[in-house]
């Protein structure tokens, strides 16, 4: 289907839209590193927010000398892409503090700039957001959102009115609603997990209204979508920075009916309240978003995965966890045990290396699991 082809093309080349947009509009682009950043606020300032992404297998040469020692693979990949020109179209870079190593990246760029070892790059802002359920957390996070607003006003040279922020929130919520409608189709086995991943991620690469138009078009054409009959699975674990893992699972006869990772439909929950102070609403929503392993308690993760299971009725859950993704690995045994108590089978795909193409073949492993356990 043409719309899906276009979405996948953009997913494969996440920079093409932003470059073209910038050339056509003369506008500014802000890279967003982390799911905690209220992109709505950036959009309200007339700046295009684009998610900054690592890429497994991409060259690390630009960052190699900086990464020796204790840099994990995702951090190394992010640094390399920010240094090697991949993101040379960014005017600004907003860095969140979860996962914690994003904060290290901020400190690194700050130091690089201070020592003048870095070629000129985007202006960098740290966006510090916490996730604990304390009163102090709410105050801190609201303060962070206000700080982001002030910086965006400085960057854009204009004030951000409550109306402009509310309009951006409305567009963001509409995006989430449309994606959730598409996710319903996915649960009805009409859209593959890899398609849904691309749809969710490209929302972070385009102007919302334009992306929403794509989603609406796709929904209008839902009758043309195929029917899949593979075995229903939930993916849970480390973020997938390309489609190879999902494609490997799908090639084994698995149908990823839901995903429990920050690249997927975890981004869709919850909506932002639209009838309260917009800065409060943003702070609240990003504080208590759908729980990832970084920054949220294991009990919240168990509940979230349990709700996914109840909603999607999978035959099994596939855990894919990177060796360097410690918080996700810490969550795994409790999630596995909770599934077992609920009578849901699961498999863990080893302790994987980032971008590993040489390890245990995923498709074979999944196929074997599916035939042995699920039948």
């Amino acid at each position, binding site marked *: 289907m043409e719309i899906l082809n276009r979405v996948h093309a953009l997913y494969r080349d996440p920079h093409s839209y932003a470059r073209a947009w910038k050339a056509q509009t003369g506008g500014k682009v802000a890279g967003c590193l982390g799911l905690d950043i209220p992109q709505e606020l950036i959009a309200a300032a007339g700046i295009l927010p684009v998610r900054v992404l690592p890429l497994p297998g991409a060259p690390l040469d630009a960052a190699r000398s900086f990464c020796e020692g204790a840099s994990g693979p995702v951090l190394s990949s992010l640094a390399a892409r920010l240094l090697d020109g991949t993101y040379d179209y960014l005017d600004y870079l907003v860095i969140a503090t979860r*996962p914690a190593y994003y904060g290290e990246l901020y400190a690194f760029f700050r130091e690089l700039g201070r*020592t003048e070892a870095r070629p000129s790059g985007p202006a960098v802002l740290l966006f510090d957001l916490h996730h604990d359920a304390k009163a102090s957390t709410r105050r801190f996070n609201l303060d962070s959102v206000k700080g982001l607003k002030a910086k965006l006003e400085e960057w854009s040279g204009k004030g951000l009115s409550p109306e402009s922020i509310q309009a951006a929130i409305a567009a963001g919520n509409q995006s989430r609603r449309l994606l959730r409608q598409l996710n319903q189709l996915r649960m009805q086995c009409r859209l593959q997990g890899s398609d849904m991943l691309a749809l969710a991620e490209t929302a972070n690469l385009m102007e919302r209204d334009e992306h929403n138009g794509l989603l609406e078009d796709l929904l209008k054409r839902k009758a043309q979508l195929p029917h899949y009959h593979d075995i229903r699975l939930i993916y849970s674990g480390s973020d997938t920075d390309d489609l190879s893992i999902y494609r490997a699972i799908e090639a084994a006869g698995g149908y990823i009916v839901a995903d429990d990772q920050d690249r997927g439909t975890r981004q869709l929950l919850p909506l932002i309240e639209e009838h309260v102070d917009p800065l409060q609403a943003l702070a609240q929503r990003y504080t208590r978003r759908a729980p990832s392993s970084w920054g949220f308690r294991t009990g919240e993760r168990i509940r979230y995965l349990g709700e996914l299971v109840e909603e999607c009725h999978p035959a099994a859950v596939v855990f894919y966890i990177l060796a360097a993704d410690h918080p996700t690995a810490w969550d795994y045994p409790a999630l596995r045990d909770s599934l077992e108590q609920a009578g849901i089978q699961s498999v863990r795909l080893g302790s994987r290396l980032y971008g590993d193409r040489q390890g245990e073949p995923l498709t074979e492993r999944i196929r074997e699991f599916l035939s042995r356990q699920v039948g």
Partner: protein
Amino acid sequence: MQKETAEQTSAREQLPQKNLSFARENSAYNREWFFDLKTRVEGGEPYAYVNADVPTEIFKAMDLPVVVNQWWSAVVSAKQKSAEYLGLLNERGYAKNLCQYCSLGFASTLARADQDAPWGGLPGPTVVVSAARCGSDQKIFDLWSREYDIPYFTIEPAVAAHPDIDDWVERGRHEWESIYGARVIDTLVEQYRELIAFLEKHTGKRFDMDKLEWIMQISNEQEEYYASTRELIAKTSPAPLNIADQIPAIMIPQWHRGTEWARDRARMFYEETRRKVEAGEGVVERERARLMWLGTGLWHNLAFYEHFQREYGAVFVWSIYLAVASDGYPTYGDDPLRTLAGRMTKIFGIMYTPPLNTQWIGNEIRRFDIDGVVSLHAGTETPEGSVCQQNIGYNYFLHRMLEEMGTPICYIGANTVDSRSWDDEATKQRVANFIELGVLAARP
């Protein structure tokens, strides 16, 4: 990994030479304190189990006993139980490369039937507290909470976005807020107040601000003794003490900081070090090289450090413990809770915030006249390796600074507490090569 021989085990398990007369007394006090704690807990008294970045001063101001995770981890490791206990964690599905130093304490509670548990094993805590810095800390303490149905409090520090680094070492004792920013301090203070309310609710203990003020004062006295001791060691060759002597002399009282006992032990440490300096007593007769150990202590093998002074006259004179005690802990201010927040911010800023961390290392190298650096540094990304406390650029900036200073560095990639990953022969050879070729041979 090569399995060590019985002979090697025996050699490794030998305690390092105790060059301080009171070292055994410190260990004995620690042990007695722990057994007293167990008795009190059995009698129904609450106690808290906390991570190292949690201010124990608050607990002491409530007369609430507190055990620090990394202290207990060091005890377990020193008793050679890390492999066994971490294995129990692995059996539950926790990957081998997960943070051993910070999870060994929890792992030790899984060995309930162990008749040889260190000091009879850790009693069950009433509450657990950690910060949320690296992502795994929160998971580990959450595990404590879920496993034993214990209330858990998380502290989320703010990142210092724009530290004012001009003369930060000199300003650190008094001007910490201007270095790190009011927001960083405010964020911690607010959470400390919430922590106090949490502890009062779950333990029945009451917080005493006057007592905290006293604790800050007496702990500052303790830490200033460490600073004076540091100067003695730094300026004396041959060094009167190596780090195997220093670490227990510092860390045991550090876990008890805010008490007269701890202050007195720090004074004793200073006085004995001064006596040694005045008497010309060095750990070696002929000191050929002064080494810096960069990283946490090798708790399962403190004797490792002494091997090189015997073989080469190369003395490990510096570790983070005395240096952090000297520069991170002494903190002064009018508001004790705010000052405490300043202290905790400084400690972690010194170690983890660029450029403070690299500048600090450079200062210490000059202070101690260091000839070479041996860095523990975290492992690399493998299913077996562990990328703990991920950072980027630290080794780059450090290396660049060391090159400018002409100070060689050797990275050994070892685990502080997990003896399973330790290859004694290979590591000794690596460091020996570094000393011979990188340090001694490089001299004009």
